[in-house]
């Protein structure tokens, strides 16, 4: 636990950073409308407790940077200093340095995409892409469609731009396209047109599922027909532990897909470098948006990344990460099977960093976190991934940033707490103490990710046909 020992003398500096009730009032008149929807949450207060040293935190979303050899880091930095000191310390072009774009082209090629240099914008992490897309596309009240659950880190961005977020349920094949179409229909009837659909097709954060090829094709088809943009966020695509890679949406359609990726998971989140490619007019606006945000991403980081790609096959490190994370994922899946009650349900991610577990709907995972912290284990409560209060019985579990032993112990403790609550509920409802061994299957939890439904029969196809006949909205 950290400990502050502040003496009187250092106070003046700190005082300026704090505010009194009157100060808040004074500043409140100056706050923009959008800050009224920027939430700091109780959950965040609880999450602060998960960072204690004595807590096994499955709540993080961190890659394991301890696997990067310090010697390599030192030698790369020396190379940057020796060969590019003045340029590394200088501003760079907003769209990014050519030498880092060449690295990006290599990564994109590995994902099955060709990317000419003039079609890429180097960003400050993948997160900046989300921000720039919102900045470029959204007026207050505009609709963004996302998956349910969605990446918790995108929610504050959407909120800051005063977007209305419509969440479409997922199953084990990713976003339910039938429900997407339904949602789009409803929006259209209400005279509202969403600006973009945000999706993480590979190893979803937090859901841990991957969008099927069929759904990918459907999604880009819908985007094209309705002239909506799709923001494809693909930070984890190369971290695949099993199965064959699926084509990115961007490779299926380059007219309506904005693509975002990052060096965070294949090299380091500390370099804060990501990239985006988008239809040319959109990319041009995003470039202007980025100028206003930070002029350019760190030149030091860009030279570091370029030196790293020059130093040897970058894929070796990714492969070493894949080995480590695959084992950790397997350990977590085994531990879940061993320690979680049968009433619980969880995803089997083929890659990425997260497993999404869903408990019976009578367990509130925000309250459960308070109980779990007593036993020194933490996770992210599912509500963080929804804008509408759903997800109350789900949790996100991270396996990439924790050792195998900690995963085993963490899941064991968590399983105990969950079993305790399941048993207590059984006692309270008279459904039996040993509810863990209840023979009948429980009803599916509210936010679980069910198997994909069978292909639509004739009636559903008739519905689809109506959608297909919608007139295109392009003028001229």
């Amino acid at each position: 636990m950290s400990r502050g020992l502040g003496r009187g003398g250092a106070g003046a500096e700190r005082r300026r950073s704090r505010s009194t009730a009157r100060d808040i009032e004074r500043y409140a008149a100056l706050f923009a409308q959008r800050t009224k929807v920027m939430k700091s949450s109780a959950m965040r207060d609880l999450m602060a407790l998960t960072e204690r040293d004595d807590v096994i935190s499955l709540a993080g979303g961190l890659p394991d940077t301890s696997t990067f050899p310090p010697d390599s880091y030192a030698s790369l930095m020396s190379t940057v200093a020796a060969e590019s000191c003045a340029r590394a310390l200088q501003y760079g072009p907003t769209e990014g340095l050519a030498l880092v774009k060449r690295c990006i082209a290599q990564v994109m090629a590995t994902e099955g995409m060709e990317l000419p240099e003039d079609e890429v914008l180097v960003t400050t992490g993948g997160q900046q892409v989300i921000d720039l897309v919102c900045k470029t596309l959204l007026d207050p009240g505009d609709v963004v469609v996302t998956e349910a659950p969605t990446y918790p880190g995108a929610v504050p961005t959407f909120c800051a731009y005063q977007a209305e977020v419509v969440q479409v349920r997922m199953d084990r094949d990713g976003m339910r396209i039938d429900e997407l179409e339904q949602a789009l229909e409803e929006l259209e009837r209400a005279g509202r047109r969403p600006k973009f659909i945000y999706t993480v097709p590979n190893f979803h954060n937090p859901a841990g599922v991957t969008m099927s090829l069929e759904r990918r094709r459907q999604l880009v088809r819908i985007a094209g027909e309705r002239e909506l943009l799709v923001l494809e966020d693909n930070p984890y695509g190369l971290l695949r532990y099993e199965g064959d890679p699926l084509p990115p949406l961007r490779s299926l359609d380059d007219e309506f897909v904005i693509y975002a990726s990052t060096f965070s998971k294949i090299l380091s989140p500390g370099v804060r470098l990501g990239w985006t490619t988008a239809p040319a007019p959109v990319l041009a606006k995003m470039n202007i948006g980025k100028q206003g945000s930070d002029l350019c991403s760190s030149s030091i980081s860009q030279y570091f990344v370029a030196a790293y790609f020059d130093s040897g096959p970058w894929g070796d490190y990714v492969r070493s990460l894949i080995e480590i994370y695959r084992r950790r994922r397997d350990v977590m899946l085994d531990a879940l099977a061993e320690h979680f009650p049968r009433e619980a349900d969880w995803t089997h991610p083929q890659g990425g960093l997260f497993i999404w577990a869903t408990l019976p709907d009578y367990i509130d995972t925000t309250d459960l976190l308070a109980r779990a912290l007593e036993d020194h284990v933490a996770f992210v409560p599912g509500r963080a991934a929804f804008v509408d209060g759903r997800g109350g019985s789900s949790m996100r579990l991270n396996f990439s940033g924790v050792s195998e032993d900690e995963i085993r112990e963490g899941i064991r403790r968590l399983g105990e707490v969950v079993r305790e609550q399941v048993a207590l509920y059984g006692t309270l409802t008279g459904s039996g103490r040993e509810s863990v061994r209840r023979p009948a299957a429980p009803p599916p939890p509210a936010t679980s990710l069910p198997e994909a439904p069978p292909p639509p029969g004739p009636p559903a196809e008739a519905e689809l046909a109506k959608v297909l006949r919608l007139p295109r909205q392009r003028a001229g």
Partner: protein
Amino acid sequence: MSTPDGTRAARNRDAGRRAGGWRVVVLKGGRSLERQVSLKSAARVEDALERLGHEVVAIDVGADLVGMLSDAQPDVAFVALHGRDGEDGTVQELLEVMGIPYTGSGVSACIRAADKVLAKHAMRDRGLPTPDFYAFNETAFKELGAAQALPAIEQRLQFPIVVKPARQGSALGIKFARTPDDVPAALVAAFSYDRKVLLERHVTGRELAVSIIEQDGRAGSLPIVEAVPVQEDFYDFEARYEIGRTRFECPAALPGEAAARAGELALEVYRLLGCSGFARVDMMLEEASGELYVLEANPIPGLTETSLLPQAAEAAGIGFDELIDRILAAAHER
């Protein structure tokens, strides 16, 4: 409450006075779920104490608390902790042992007030109005079949029923059960925070917070703050600490004698539980009957930007620094 004379703390206190200010340890943080709130409260308290000319030593409460207190040799401890350990008498007991005067209520008052069940029993025994309730330990359900008594409880309390952990501040774990089907899950949630929970009759009406501070050994109530939720259907943990989620009115516009009655009732509860220094008593003004019902007393109410006691003090013309000064002075007077 007495502090042994001739202790090191007492000697230092004299030294501090000569220098014009005291050496004050601000106890904050800890492992409570309200850690973040405590850190916010403490940050403001530290600033105020410095402005008042005191020497401030902030301690994030942990395993070496006793050692750090010994090293700091404070004249007085300002307890800016909320929730477990800090508000339930634990830290107060340690401060008693070490002979360090401290702000706020003593050990026994903290024990009584921090536990809603103890506090409500005390109120009921004294004839002070508090909503009807039933409280159980987890073992009552696990070992004694208390679940079978739920229908009878539900019939007596009528829906909606509020389910709460006995010891947890800041509305964490408080659930509304609207139907019998909601009750088991609400109990499971409440048991996440404590081994003892209560089921309480829901009082529909206005939520009032009556803050109390002492001056020259006399406790007095401050203007009443009314918490008006802006959107949520229940005044929850989120809203309590965020600007813009709850509208606060101070002084609350209350009909007739209600304000005076609320102030008196809060003082009665304050004395009944044996509080000292300051406290906040939360109550409901029932819409249908016009009656007041006390929900709980907080021995260490929040002191953040959005907290109710500082707002009430401001409404009474008592600025934050003066408030802190009075709370500190009360620690010395007893």
